[in-house]
């Protein structure tokens, strides 16, 4: 069936061999994504955006608030890690672990908000659609750079399932943005935290995965 033997194929591959740069360590790529997220947050603050949440330590150290923040951070690290590892042969276990961490983070963040609503620690209403959309928009903006970095990595590596890799990169990047938003948003409403912070990565995955995955698949084929 085949026109040439495997040995001939090997000789041809060796003849056309070009030097390549090995992919960066996964840890370094993940750290770079987090740093990019922090740089975006700092840049936004320098450009007149909101600073860290005011009101003293007390406003930070409530269980629902911390659970939401920790959950978003886990979604960010887990999903970006899973996207990066999923594009490297032999790192499937790390990829699955990252996806599980992200899923746990999402559950934790939602549970944190629901806990706040159930116990009435903070007002559960009073949030209009505009405030929610503003926070979701900020999460998208702050998460864009880490998301694109993760996408660039998976295109350069050897991604097999561009759809899944892209969805994870989007979820991770926007979750990082949402964690930044959560740290700066003045709202005390757990309902707002769920709708505008925790669900921002989910919304991003729904809206952005199809076009970005198509783009990535095209780049991957060209590469």
């Amino acid at each position, binding site marked *: *069936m*085949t026109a*040439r*033997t*495997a*040995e001939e*194929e*090997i*000789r041809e*591959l*060796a*003849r056309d*061999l*070009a*030097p*390549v*740069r*090995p*992919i960066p*360590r996964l840890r370094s790529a993940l750290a770079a994504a987090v740093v990019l997220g922090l740089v975006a947050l700092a840049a936004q603050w320098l450009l007149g955006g909101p600073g860290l949440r005011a009101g003293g330590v007390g406003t930070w150290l409530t269980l629902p608030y911390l659970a939401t923040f920790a959950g978003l951070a886990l979604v960010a690290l887990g999903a970006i890690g899973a996207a990066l590892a999923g*594009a*490297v*042969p*032999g*790192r*499937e276990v790390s990829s699955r672990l990252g996806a599980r961490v992200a899923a746990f983070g999402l559950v934790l963040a939602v549970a944190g908000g629901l806990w706040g609503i159930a116990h009435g620690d903070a007002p559960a209403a009073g949030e209009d659609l505009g405030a929610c959309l503003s926070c979701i928009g900020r999460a998208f903006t702050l998460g864009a750079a880490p998301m694109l970095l993760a996408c660039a990595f998976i295109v*350069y*590596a*050897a991604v*097999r399932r561009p759809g899944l890799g892209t969805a994870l990169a989007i979820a991770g990047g926007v979750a990082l943005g949402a964690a930044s938003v959560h740290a700066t948003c003045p709202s005390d409403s757990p309902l707002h935290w769920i709708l505008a912070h925790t669900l921002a990565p989910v919304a991003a995955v729904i809206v952005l995965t199809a076009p970005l995955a198509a783009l990535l698949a095209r780049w991957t084929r060209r590469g």
Partner: protein
Amino acid sequence: MIAAQGGDGVVYEKLLLELLPHVRRQVAGRVGEPAERDDIVQNVLISLHRARHTYRSERPFGPWLRAVVRNASIDWMRARGRRLRHELSLEEVAEPSYQAPLPGEDALSPELEGALASLSENQRKAVELLHVEGLSVAEAAERVGVSPGALKVRAHRGVRALRALVRRDP
């Protein structure tokens, strides 16, 4: 592999030749039909070549290689499945309305005989059984010892090759 990443073709060729028996063994463990193994091995070699930059020296080589071989084999089999489904659906659309010739009647023209002889053994056998002897797909498949699907694909490819040969040589 690190030397290969640097562009050393001689070392790379040696490495791939050394890996070839391992790759063949791993592919043989996944694919039953020997005829398909060579295709998959070559596909694996190309995948390995394309993914060579994803190996990092601080990570063990074995799991990386096994993952590349596994992924390339799975991708190849999925692509083959898609091809088969496509070709079978084409076959169903254009089911040949063939009637076997009566005894004594000339079955094939000399041109067609020549074209048939130039097909591969598998394709020629499939075409002869289905279109010359007039067996059913199930009977022909049983006689050759392959699945009906595989026989239909061989026959379809054979007919396509015959058509191309006859068109080229009017």
